[in-house]
């Protein structure tokens, strides 16, 4: 466009100016239109630019643009976020600044640069450094593009940390499982439907002393004890139906010989529910089985022990009783379970004993004593028992064990033994006293023994039949001695009597001699004493005795007895049925006199052939000794 600076001329010069003006106006219009056009097109570019920038900024991946020298020209928000830079900071960086230090990254960087130049693009995964120095893994996709006359590199950065983390987790868990299988003592195998090994754990190889190579492809059954093969096969049939798992115990020939293995087998199912393989997890349970066996044995021992065994928990509730207990007490096992054993004790001070027992055993000590215990039927017995606390492997008390024994019989024989010893002592004591009289008897009997014996021999021989027989029989008769047994029934609680001991002895002696004479062929001489109370009616039977307490002495023989006439004169002085050489006839008169002097009475009960009983009553002294009253008879 040409513009003149000259002023306009009047006249013809006006027309010329007018022509310029039109021209100018046209130009202006054209320019305006061009400007409008330009304005339009610049607005369109800006819109486009804005659209792309929005896309750029909002992309989920990190985006950056750099030149071939590695100067960063543009970054998006995501990339800044990933690397921790502001945009301004990022734009001052070079690409190499995002690589970790070290020769390896430098090599990588130049390799990538080379590839971009040669191939125009590069896809790779690498580790980068953020602003804080942290490492970040990225999957990089770069492409070279000619923009104007500049070669620019457009790069997409995808953060693969999450994926890596998942992969690593997977790897880690795999290695965990591998470690588990390799190090676990449990045996792990996988077999196919025919029982051929597909996998064996190292523990299995160790136990059987074979390598994986030796086992894989072979069947497991030949390793199983012959007797256990059929049960094993039968059990494994269960794998083909839900829930597709079975447990089986079998013996197997291991490196250490036959061992018991317990297997838990599970079927591996295919897509259509068919059994593809079987995974077995096994364990050597030999020790466990032996322990069980031992425990069963011990249980049998406890169950069948002759001593009674009661086990309680720490709250003293019965948890176990053996057969001897049920036999001893008459309770069934069910009746005793859960109860505290107190109810078995029949001692009057049972609560004190129980307390003593609890105190002892809870302090970890053993308690032992004898007590009277009661059976279910109410009868009692002497029980020797011992209660001890039982400890677990940590030394904690877990239960109490009581071993009991009925020692009634032992106590009885102990008492007998004691009695025997006393008798023996008594015999020894009496021996010195009785040596004279006894010695005479012993010597006499020792003499009589051969006389009697040889008489028997003679009588059995030829002498028995002829005339010599008679005198031999007489010799024999003389040698046979009367045999009188003495029976005592003495009341230990007898009250005292006031009297002359010597005189009363005379009474007893006289009655005894009389009885002996009444039993020439031997018999029983019985003495009985008893305390009794005479009521007025009872007193009437006795001559002039007042009612009251008496001591009665009975002297009874099994001799010839007396008729009424003899009985009537019995106590008269000088009355006697014996020959003049045998008695004085004063004995019973003396008995009568002494008894009467003592304020008592004597009565006689006798019949010919039925023996004789003398009944003597002497007044008892109250307050002296014991008095156990019986009604008079």
């Amino acid at each position: 466009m040409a513009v003149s600076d000259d002023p306009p001329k009047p006249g013809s010069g006006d027309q010329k100016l007018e022509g310029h003006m039109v021209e100018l106006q046209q130009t202006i219009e054209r320019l305006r239109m061009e400007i409008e056009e330009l304005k339009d097109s610049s607005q369109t570019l800006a819109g486009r630019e804005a659209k792309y920038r929005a896309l750029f900024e909002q992309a989920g991946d990190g985006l950056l643009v750099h030149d071939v020298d590695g100067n960063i020209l543009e970054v998006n928000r995501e990339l800044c976020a990933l690397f921790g830079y502001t945009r301004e900071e990022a734009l001052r960086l070079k690409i190499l600044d995002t690589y970790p230090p070290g020769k390896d990254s430098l090599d990588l960087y130049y390799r990538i640069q080379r590839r971009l130049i040669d191939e125009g693009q590069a896809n790779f995964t690498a580790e980068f450094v953020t602003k804080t120095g942290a490492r970040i893994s990225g999957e990089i996709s770069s492409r070279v593009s000619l923009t104007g006359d500049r070669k620019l590199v457009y790069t997409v950065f995808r953060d693969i940390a999450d994926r890596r983390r998942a992969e690593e987790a997977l790897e880690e868990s795999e290695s965990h499982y591998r470690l588990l299988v390799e190090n676990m003592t449990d045996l792990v195998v996988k077999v196919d439907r025919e029982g051929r090994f597909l996998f064996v754990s190292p523990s299995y190889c160790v136990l059987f002393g074979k390598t994986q190579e030796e086992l894989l492809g072979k069947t497991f059954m030949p390793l199983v004890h012959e007797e256990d093969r059929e049960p094993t096969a039968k059990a494994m049939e269960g794998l083909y139906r839900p829930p597709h798992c079975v447990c089986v115990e079998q013996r197997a020939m291991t490196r250490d010989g036959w061992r018991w293995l317990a297997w838990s087998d599970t079927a591996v199912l295919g897509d259509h529910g068919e059994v593809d393989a079987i995974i077995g997890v096994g364990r050597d349970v030999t020790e466990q089985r032996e322990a069980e066996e031992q425990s069963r044995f011990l249980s049998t021992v406890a169950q069948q022990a002759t001593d009674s065994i009661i086990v309680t928990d720490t709250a003293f509730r019965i948890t176990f009783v053996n057969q001897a207990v049920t036999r001893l007490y008459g309770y069934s096992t069910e009746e005793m379970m859960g109860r505290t054993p107190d109810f078995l004790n029949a001692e009057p001070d049972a609560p004190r004993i129980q307390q003593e027992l609890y105190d002892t055993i809870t302090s970890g000590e053993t308690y032992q004593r004898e007590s009277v215990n009661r059976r279910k039927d109410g009868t009692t017995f002497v029980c020797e028992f011992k209660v001890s606390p039982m400890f677990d492997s940590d030394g904690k008390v877990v239960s109490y064990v009581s071993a009991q024994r009925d020692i009634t019989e032992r106590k009885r024989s102990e008492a007998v033994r004691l009695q025997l010893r006393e008798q023996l002592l008594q015999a020894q004591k009496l021996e010195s006293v009785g040596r004279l009289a006894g010695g005479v008897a012993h010597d006499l009997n020792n003499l009589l023994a051969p006389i009697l014996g040889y008489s028997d021999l003679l009588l059995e021989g030829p002498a028995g039949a002829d005339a010599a027989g008679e005198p031999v029989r007489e010799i024999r008769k003389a040698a046979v001695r009367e045999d009188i047994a003495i029976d005592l029934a003495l009341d230990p609680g007898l009250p005292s009597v006031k009297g002359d001991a010597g005189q009363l002895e005379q009474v007893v002696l006289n009655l005894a001699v009389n009885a002996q004479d009444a039993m020439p062929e031997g018999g029983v001489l019985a003495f009985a004493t008893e305390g009794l109370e005479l009521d007025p009616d009872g007193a009437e039977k006795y001559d002039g005795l007042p009612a009251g307490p008496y001591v009665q002495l009975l002297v009874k023989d099994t001799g010839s007895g007396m008729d009424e006439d003899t009985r009537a004169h019995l106590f008269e002085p000088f009355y006697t049925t014996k020959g003049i050489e045998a008695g004085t006839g004063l004995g019973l008169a003396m008995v009568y006199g002494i008894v009467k002097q003592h304020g008592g009475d004597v009565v006689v009960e006798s019949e010919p052939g039925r023996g004789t009983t003398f009944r003597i009553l002497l007044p008892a002294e109250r307050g002296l000794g014991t008095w156990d009253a019986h009604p008079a008879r």
Partner: protein
Amino acid sequence: MTNILIVDDEPCIRTLLRRFLEMEGHTVSEATDGDEALKAYRADPADLVLMDIVMPGKEGIETIMQMCREFPQAKIVAISGGGLNRPQNYLQIAEQLGAKRTLTKPFSREELLAAVRELL
């Protein structure tokens, strides 16, 4: 054939017992007190022992006690003519200490043989 040991300090009683027993076909050996009896029994346990109680040296009660402790199966007949007021005292003790039977002197041949038969 049974073997019977007679223990008595009285020679004429030993002779009598020996005659009675040998007539029945028994083999008999003799001892004159407890110590001798124990020695003889330990050397050759007799099927039956006839044991007098009152003897000089080791008497019968102690001998029976010791013999029964050493040989619970020993069969012993205790024999006594007394020494105390009643021979039964000793014999009761002997019986409780292990004698299987007792016999009071003087005894008849039948009584002796009955006791022997009962235990053999």
